[in-house]
């Protein structure tokens, strides 16, 4: 490991940020290429005309509606490939970007792993959108071709890439304000993506709901940041964590307000109401990105604020209040999500509630790390790192099976909507391959071995349990009363996983046993690239469950670079 510090906009800076630069470059290309045409620019006061290739009659080759999607997919693929090559061998060094004595961004294993999660999710979603129209043909007002040919193709992929870029900023940020600017960049793009179906009532409504709740949450978070700045005079993560102990009650209140902002992003319990509406109205690949990448983005915020800022050296009682709050919220979140999913008749809403439940599991894991940090649990630092690594692994594999499930719904949307459970009926007979894939995704979500979902849940539960046992286990026998109360969180996860099996399997029952509904007897629409995205997800779900060693190592290295100990 050779850590280095580079000044912003220096040569080393550009080198270190090559993958992100690829993203920016791709973004600019999508702006320009569809607008290339034969226009001419007249130099003022003369009659000289010089060719000015923007505007006018568009060239046939570059004006093709398929171009933006291909460009976006290629861009994301290149950036993702660069990051994976950089990170997978494990000797990537930390690069810190400073401007003067202000630390702005940091590239290390932690941020790179999260960037890989974001780019993988957005890449799969944009691949899946390649041959399905992002705009639906509701009420048959327009033909599929008309919708496909419209200029909104470019808008859709510009927004996708902007989301990816904003999320990468969040992963890299070392200053809470930079983190929030990245969060806003990603959120503003997702508000539009959710409301992208402006031809449908549901699309417009979900856009409005998501926008209002999201911007209120981020307004609250931003106010929390300004209070933190008032209290500590800086929003640098390093400064904040160094001065945290000297803070007053104002700091604790400010932290709570900031957590509201991130809590909305992970759709934690009191702030989860907008999520099901947003997922139901957005098109499925976008909903998949919201459920995976956007959630991981909020998780970064929680990890940074709770584990990096608020925890080191804080053994005071005010901090313990947050620990109990977090524990309660995590249990409420997972239970509420699962119970609501049980009662939901809309597969997209069901997946949304299940992602609320998954947020609860991850918050339980964070609570366990918190309990360790506060010195309430007597355990070595590796335990905490193991839990953080388990959370990272969980976030990563969620991209495989949760996004995969949304992509199957996207395939159903191509033939007209997937907002009722009956849309899935008989899927296994109509298309055995897709039906089986969906069933495997459901099993993975429920946590059935040997799939990736089992592995991730197992790691999280094992982490919590071993942290709650801690050093006690070395004495030989452990009595029940000696266990730390975070043990109950693991139990809550078990019970909730058992509840969740019901609604995941219900989808399987509907797919395999029910008769296809009227008008859905024909084979599924083909869609080569969307099917390819589904296969990638399926292979990842199985492979990462059977042999996820490389990925688990990556997660461990990422957790280590957080410097929890």
């Amino acid at each position, binding site marked *: 490991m050779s850590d280095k510090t580079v000044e912003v906009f220096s040569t080393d800076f550009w080198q270190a940020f090559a993958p992100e630069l690829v993203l920016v470059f791709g973004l600019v290309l999508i702006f320009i290429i569809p607008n290339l045409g034969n226009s001419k620019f007249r130099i003022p006061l003369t009659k000289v005309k010089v060719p000015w290739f923007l505007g006018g009659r568009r060239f046939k080759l570059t004006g093709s509606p398929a171009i933006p999607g291909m460009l976006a997919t290629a861009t994301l693929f290149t950036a993702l490939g660069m990051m994976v090559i950089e990170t997978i061998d494990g000797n990537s060094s930390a690069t810190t970007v400073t401007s003067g004595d202000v630390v702005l961004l940091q590239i290390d294993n932690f941020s790179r792993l999260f960037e890989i999660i974001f780019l993988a999710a957005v890449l799969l979603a944009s691949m899946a959108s390649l041959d399905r129209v992002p705009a639906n043909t509701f009420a048959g007002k327009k033909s599929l071709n008309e919708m496909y040919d419209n200029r909104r193709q470019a808008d859709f992929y510009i927004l996708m890439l902007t989301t990816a870029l904003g999320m990468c900023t969040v992963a890299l940020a070392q200053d809470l304000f930079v983190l929030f600017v990245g969060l806003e960049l990603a959120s503003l793009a997702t508000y539009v993506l959710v409301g992208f179906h402006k*031809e449908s009532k549901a699309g417009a409504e979900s856009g409005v709901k998501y926008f*209002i709740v999201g911007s209120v949450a981020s307004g609250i978070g931003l106010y929390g940041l300004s209070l933190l700045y008032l209290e500590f005079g800086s929003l640098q993560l390093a400064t904040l964590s160094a001065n945290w102990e000297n803070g007053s009650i104002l700091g604790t209140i400010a932290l709570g307000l900031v957590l509201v902002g991130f809590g909305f992003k992970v759709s934690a319990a009191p702030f989860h109401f907008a999520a099901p509406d947003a997922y139901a109205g957005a098109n499925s690949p976008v909903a998949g990105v919201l459920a995976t990448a956007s959630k991981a983005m909020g998780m970064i915020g929680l990890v940074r604020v709770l584990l990096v800022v608020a925890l080191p050296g804080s053994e005071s009682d005010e901090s313990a209040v947050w620990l109990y709050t977090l524990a309660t919220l995590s249990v409420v979140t997972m239970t509420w999500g699962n119970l609501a999913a049980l009662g939901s008749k809309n597969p997209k809403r069901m997946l949304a509630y299940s992602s609320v439940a998954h947020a609860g599991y991850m918050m339980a894991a964070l609570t366990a790390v918190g309990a360790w940090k506060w010195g309430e649990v007597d355990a070595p630092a590796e335990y905490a790192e193991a839990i953080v690594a388990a959370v990272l692994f969980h976030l990563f594999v969620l991209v495989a099976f949760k996004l995969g499930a949304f992509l199957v719904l996207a395939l159903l949307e191509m033939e007209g909507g997937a907002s009722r459970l009956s849309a899935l009926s008989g899927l296994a007979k109509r298309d055995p391959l897709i039906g089986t894939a969906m069933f495997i995704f459901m099993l993975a979500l429920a946590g059935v071995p040997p799939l990736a979902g089992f592995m991730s849940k197992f790691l999280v539960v094992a982490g919590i349990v071993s942290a709650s046992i801690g050093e006690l286990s070395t004495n030989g026998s452990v009595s029940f009363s000696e266990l730390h109360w975070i043990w109950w969180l693991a139990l809550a996860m078990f019970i909730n996983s058992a509840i969740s099996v019901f609604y995941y399997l219900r989808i399987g029952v509907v797919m395999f046993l029910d008769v296809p509904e009227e008008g859905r007897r024909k084979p599924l629409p083909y869609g080569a690239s969307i099917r390819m995205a589904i296969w990638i997800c399926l292979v990842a779900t199985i492979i990462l469950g059977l042999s996820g060693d490389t990925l688990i190592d990556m997660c461990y290295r990422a957790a280590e670079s957080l410097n929890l100990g």
Partner: protein
Amino acid sequence: MIDPAWVSGLAAILFIIGLWGAFSRKNAIVVLMCIELMLNAVNLQFVAAASHWGDVTGWVYAVFAIAIAAAEVAIGLAIFLSMYGQHETISLDEVNLLKN
């Protein structure tokens, strides 16, 4: 010069008014205005804190927050316009198609 504490107090009051309005009002435009009020409270707070600490960063934060607020208004109005196009109302309690 005004004591920064007064400015922070004003910011807190503005923020609470904005928050209360965003939860209680039904007209989408008014809700958007309330969100703007919250963001402006943030700006005031940053500026007050900056003069309290004698640190330029706070002013820079305020400028960024203004830019964020502007982008949010642009997107919000566009989304409301598309809602009006479909539902022919901007009243939030009349727009409730999405249910279980």
